[in-house]
């Protein structure tokens, strides 16, 4: 900024490239594995959990549909930050102190990471299930009947016939959802998890410099989103059926 000479005797320090390259980027890049682990584990967890949820969402029985719809509405109708706090502070306060201190589970129960991961997974499941249901809805019912006529079990019909087609049909939406998931991982920085944003905030508090850590984090996220976008585009090209 050319405004520097007009600057009153403020505490504002100008942007330092040296600090940016040597003080900020290395710790932020070192935190990338945490962000990616959260993203990948939450994506895998929600991929698994969303299958039964999407089936229940489309079920004929009210007793299956109703709980699934309530779950979907509750998780999608409230901010993720509230869900993270509810699980970290709320669930954390319900766990008996004794368990947290001396038990086989204490490393898990004391680590904010698992609370963050749980919140991310539960939230993501609701979104993925709705997408998956769209994909399942698009499949001709006749295929299910044909599979039945051929003597395929219900599980095999699901895993071999229905899911592959559904996933292929909604793959662009799922890829988009993965990017949204990567972006929501920053919210766990509020519960003392040192992902990329958590590390940037930590640098901010330690060095009292603001510009470099935040801009560094922005660069890291832009690169990560770019890489995931490219990877998804490559997968999408492979999934595209030759004749279509």
């Amino acid at each position, binding site marked *: 900024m050319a405004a520097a000479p007009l600057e009153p005797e403020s505490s504002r320090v100008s942007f330092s490239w040296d600090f940016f390259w040597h003080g900020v980027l290395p710790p932020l890049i070192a935190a990338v594995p945490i962000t990616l682990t959260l993203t990948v584990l939450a994506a895998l967890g929600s991929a698994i959990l969303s299958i039964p949820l999407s089936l229940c969402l489309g079920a004929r029985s009210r007793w299956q549909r109703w709980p699934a719809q309530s779950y979907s509405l509750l998780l999608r109708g409230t*901010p993720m*930050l509230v869900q993270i*706090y509810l699980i970290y502070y*709320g669930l954390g306060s319900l766990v008996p102190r004794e368990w947290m201190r001396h038990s086989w589970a204490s490393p898990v129960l004391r680590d904010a990471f698992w609370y963050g991961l749980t919140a991310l997974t539960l939230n993501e499941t609701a979104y993925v299930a709705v997408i998956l249901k769209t994909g399942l809805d698009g499949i001709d019912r006749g295929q299910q009947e044909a599979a039945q006529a051929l003597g395929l079990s219900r599980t095999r019909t699901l895993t071999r016939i229905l899911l592959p087609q559904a996933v292929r049909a909604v793959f662009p939406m799922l890829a988009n959802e993965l990017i949204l998931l990567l972006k929501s991982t920053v*919210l766990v920085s509020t519960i003392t998890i040192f992902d990329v*944003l958590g590390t940037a905030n930590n640098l901010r508090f330690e060095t009292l410099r603001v510009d470099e850590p935040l801009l560094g984090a922005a660069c890291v996220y832009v690169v990560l989103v770019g890489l995931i976008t490219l990877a998804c585009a490559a997968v999408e090209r492979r999934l595209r059926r030759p004749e279509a």
Partner: protein
Amino acid sequence: MSAWNAPLAGYGTQLLLGLIFTLQVALCSYTIGMVFGVLGAAAKLSRRRGLRLAAGLYTTLVRALPELLLVLLAFFLGAGLIERLLVFLRLASEDFSLNPFVVAVVALGFIQGAYLTEILRAAVLAIPRGQQEAARALNLPPLTYLGRIVAPQALRHALGGLGNIWLNATKDASLISVLGIFSDVLKVSSLAAAATKRYVFFYMVAGACFLALTLVSMALLEWLRRRLSLSRLA
């Protein structure tokens, strides 16, 4: 302590004010987001390459960055830069500082604007090209064409998307609680939870408040959708 306040440990009034504040943040940021969205869509559909590139950069960057990071960037970088620019241009006195509420709603609006840009652009593109030619043949003034022909149809195409962004706006309004300077419903709930040690209860109350906003919004959107649907006109 009144009867309705007692179960909330005396935080009822604060929570209600917090909910109103959160709703204000959502409404203001959405309105500002609409301005960014209309400008962005106009730029993307423009014949000028420079405008198209700028709008493309805006939507790509904003959609690639996490919302919370953008809010922090706006508070710790953006606001300072704008303040210094205003001082430099002699539009403000040296001790000028932006109102935090304004910074918050502009930052959130800026984010929503990027998503609204894409929705509005797609909605305008869904209008058949022949209509533009017909309007020109009828010698319709460009503003009349935009206001009477494009806007009503585009709005109908965009309604679903606009509704989704509004639902996001109510949820994204919770992000400002991280800054710790506003008394929004989530911040009040956090304070109440920490003071009473009733974490589950107060975060559930916060969740219920946001869920109520979502449900009311969904009902209103459904009503709007029915009102605007073409089958009513037939």
